[in-house]
């Protein structure tokens, strides 16, 4: 390139300057250069400078098009900026010209302007020259500063088909050489401004609030998140500028941020870096949590930032963690309940068997005792305790296997009366004489289809809770009524239109806060002090039982005035079972085979059924039952469900009906109706009796089965 003159590059520039003075056109160029310098020396808008330079060059060299490809500052890659005038402004090819390392190396060596035809460099520059040639670029000149290629400037062809003379190229060269220092300083300013904007942009997109303080404890820099955090708690801050030069103590005003500033100042004085986690500020009723970090920085820049403080808003994270923890606790609780259910199920079977004699024998003893026997009362107490124990086991099973109740028509008034007459309630009333209990039963109340012991539990829980809610005494009203309902006034539940038996339990106690009302049925949600009373399951059990009875509830509560629970149970037309049947209904002389693996159960069954006239034979497992039945008939079989694992009640039943298809069977079990019991019922329609049973229950079932001349579903 330009090798025909024999001058070195520096010689050429000097020569050009000399030549200018004798050339009017060159004087014009010199004038343009001076004006550019004057205009941009104090106002270094880089892109505007280049655009003006391109227009100046276009005028100076009588060309219609010129372009510049410039390295974009602040990026390590070869991203460029394209500026152009004339038809070059629309050239996609020129716009996408890369500033490759090859090109940079080439221009470091040949740093002067040259005709495209003279540009001759290897590799990528060849295609580069091809593009310039295709676009009718006549002259190209590098913008070099300190051996760094800032960009390329290209000039199009001269107007009216005129050619660039050597003199033009020398002038162009000299112009560029003269203006490069201005371009370079403007470029560096642009680079600095771009980097500064870039760094600020990065800082503003950091999730944490960032505060940079100088050695004098004054705020020097803050990012957008930081401003937003401060403004969230202190809306009086007018703008960002007003925050600069505030002290640490002023930024974190003690009235809002409590002792933050003191703790930070102490931390910074004692450590190079550290953190204070979980600082909480309450603003407008909302609690915000922050993790605060502080760190000393080098301070060797001109700006003397001494330490930075970052605030990480962890409010949402804390909230989510809390929620996750609650869910985890609930899950653990559910697992505990499930484990308890399994345990309760297992224990219930054993306990029921043990309770069998306790439930059954008092009845037999009472039958044999004279009416005026002084021990009748004690035997009755044994029977009551045994029944209570049995009910406790049923409660365990209620928790374990909700919904599998034995439903029968129940009068709610009797449930309440039963509880109010219970020793437990009488004792509680004695302990709290300042609580007045009023019971107003509606004698016309409708029956409901329910489970007496479970409804008893509901009544008990509501009354116990009402007592607990009145530590200073008060009035407890228990009211029942028969109502036709379309909707609930409290609105806590939606209701199916119809007749309902309604139970109201109203106290004048401390009341429940509105926010707690929605949660009171959650297991272990309690506002009572731990250990004060109850298991934490009381209202959960109430809720579960009400729902299992297809019932609804309303709650009305006012702090300091009291609470009213209203339960609605759908009415049934069925009548209650008679309390006692005539003795004739359970006497008989038929033969009975009792199959049970527990000796006490066999004994109690034998004693009970023998006492009312039956001929009873007992065997201890299913196989022996089959063996017996293969040789002897039995009018009915009392078959225990849970026996040997490999030959339980169902297995035995299958064998029995194979042997004697018309055999009558009653299934008994300590468990609720399991799937295997249901399987037997499907096969033979056998009645199911839950252990422990009384003579009255088992004998009635036997009589009913034996008196049914045409047993249904008996296999042929």
């Amino acid at each position, binding site marked *: 390139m330009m090798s025909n003159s024999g001058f070195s590059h520096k010689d050429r520039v000097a020569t050009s300057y000399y030549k200018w003075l004798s050339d009017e056109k060159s004087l014009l160029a010199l004038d343009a250069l001076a004006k550019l310098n004057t205009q941009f020396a104090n106002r270094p808008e880089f892109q505007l400078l280049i655009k003006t330079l*391109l227009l*100046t060059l*276009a*005028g*100076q060299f009588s060309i219609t098009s010129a372009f510049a490809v410039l390295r974009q500052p602040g990026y390590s890659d070869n991203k460029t900026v394209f500026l152009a*005038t004339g038809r070059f402004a629309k050239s996609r090819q020129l716009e996408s010209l890369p500033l490759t390392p090859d090109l940079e190396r080439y221009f470091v060596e040949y740093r002067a302007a040259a005709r495209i035809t003279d540009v001759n460099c290897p590799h990528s520059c060849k295609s580069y020259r091809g593009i310039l040639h295709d676009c009718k670029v006549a002259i190209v000149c590098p913008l070099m500063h300190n051996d760094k290629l800032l960009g390329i400037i290209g000039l199009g062809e001269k107007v009216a088909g005129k050619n660039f003379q050597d003199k033009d190229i020398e002038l162009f060269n000299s112009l560029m050489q003269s203006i490069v220092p201005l371009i370079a300083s403007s470029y560096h300013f642009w680079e600095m401004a771009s980097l500064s904007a870039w760094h600020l942009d990065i800082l503003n997109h950091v999730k944490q609030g960032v505060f940079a303080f100088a050695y004098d404890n004054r705020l020097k820099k803050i990012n957008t998140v930081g401003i937003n955090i401060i403004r969230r708690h202190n809306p009086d801050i007018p703008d960002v500028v007003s925050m600069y030069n505030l002290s640490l103590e002023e930024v974190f005003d003690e009235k809002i941020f409590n002792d933050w500033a003191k703790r930070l100042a102490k931390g910074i004085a004692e450590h190079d870096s550290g953190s204070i986690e979980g600082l909480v500020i309450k603003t407008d009723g909302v609690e915000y949590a922050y993790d605060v970090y502080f760190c000393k920085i080098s301070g060797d820049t001109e700006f003397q930032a001494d330490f930075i403080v970052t605030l990480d808003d962890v409010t949402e994270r804390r909230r989510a963690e809390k929620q996750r923890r609650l869910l985890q606790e609930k899950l653990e609780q559910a697992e505990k309940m499930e484990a308890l259910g399994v345990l309760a199920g297992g224990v219930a079977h054993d306990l029921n068997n043990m309770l069998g004699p306790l439930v059954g024998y008092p009845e037999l003893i009472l039958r044999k005792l004279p009416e005026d026997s002084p021990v009748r009362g004690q035997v009755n107490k044994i029977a009551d305790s045994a029944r209570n124990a049995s009910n406790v086991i049923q409660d365990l099973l209620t928790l374990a296997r909700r919904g599998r109740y034995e439903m029968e028509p129940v009068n709610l008034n009797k449930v309440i009366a039963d509880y109010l007459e219970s020793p437990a309630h009488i004792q509680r009333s004695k302990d709290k004489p300042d609580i007045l209990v009023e019971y107003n039963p509606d004698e016309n109340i409708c029956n409901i289809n329910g489970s007496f012991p479970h409804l008893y539990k509901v009544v008990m829980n509501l009354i116990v809770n009402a007592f607990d809610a009145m530590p200073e005494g008060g009035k407890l009203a228990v009211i029942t009524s028969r109502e036709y309902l379309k909707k609930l006034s409290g609105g806590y539940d939606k209701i199916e239109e119809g007749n309902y038996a309604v139970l109201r339990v109203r106290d004048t106690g401390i009341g429940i806060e509105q926010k707690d009302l929605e949660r009171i049925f959650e297991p272990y949600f309690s506002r009572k002090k731990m250990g004060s009373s109850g298991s934490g399951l009381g209202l959960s059990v109430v809720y579960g039982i009400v729902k299992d009875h297809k019932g609804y509830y309303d709650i009305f509560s006012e702090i300091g005035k009291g609470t009213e629970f209203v339960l609605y149970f759908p009415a049934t037309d069925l009548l209650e079972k008679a309390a006692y049947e005539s003795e004739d209904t359970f006497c008989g002389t038929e033969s009975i085979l009792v199959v049970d693996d527990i000796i006490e159960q066999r004994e109690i069954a034998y004693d009970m059924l023998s006492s009312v006239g039956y001929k009873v034979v007992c065997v201890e497992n299913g196989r022996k039952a089959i063996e017996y039945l293969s040789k002897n008939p039995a009018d009915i079989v009392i078959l225990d469900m849970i026996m040997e694992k490999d030959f339980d009640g169902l297995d035995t039943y299958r064998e029995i009906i194979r042997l004697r298809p018309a055999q009558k069977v009653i299934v008994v079990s300590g468990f609720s109706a399991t799937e295997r019991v249901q399987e037997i019922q499907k096969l033979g329609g056998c009645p199911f009796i839950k252990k422990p049973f009384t003579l009255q229950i088992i004998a009635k079932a036997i009589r009913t089965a034996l008196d049914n001349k045409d047993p249904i579903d008996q296999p042929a």
Partner: protein
Amino acid sequence: MDKPNITKTVINDDVVIIKPIKTLDNNNAHEMVNIITGVQEDGYKTIVMDMTDLEFLSSAGVGSILGTIETSREVGGDIILCNVPESINHILDILDLIDYLTIRENKEKAIAMTGARI
């Protein structure tokens, strides 16, 4: 520094008069490019540049005309200079542009070239 001024007068759907006042140099060359480009985009084929009040024309000012003139010529229009003062004419002469540019003595003659009337 007084802000250089440029005025624009629409003659008809094809012709518009642009008048740089006092100077056309580094300071307002971009404004001139933007104005010319704007009227070209608005569909005006011929632009009459009235230089009556122009006292100084720099290389950048010339560049603003040269950088936009091809667009008008491509659509059969032009940028016609008129009322060119002697000093400005001298600059154009130095830059060897007298033959390339269309120059008319006055505005009327420039507009007459387009067939339009004031």
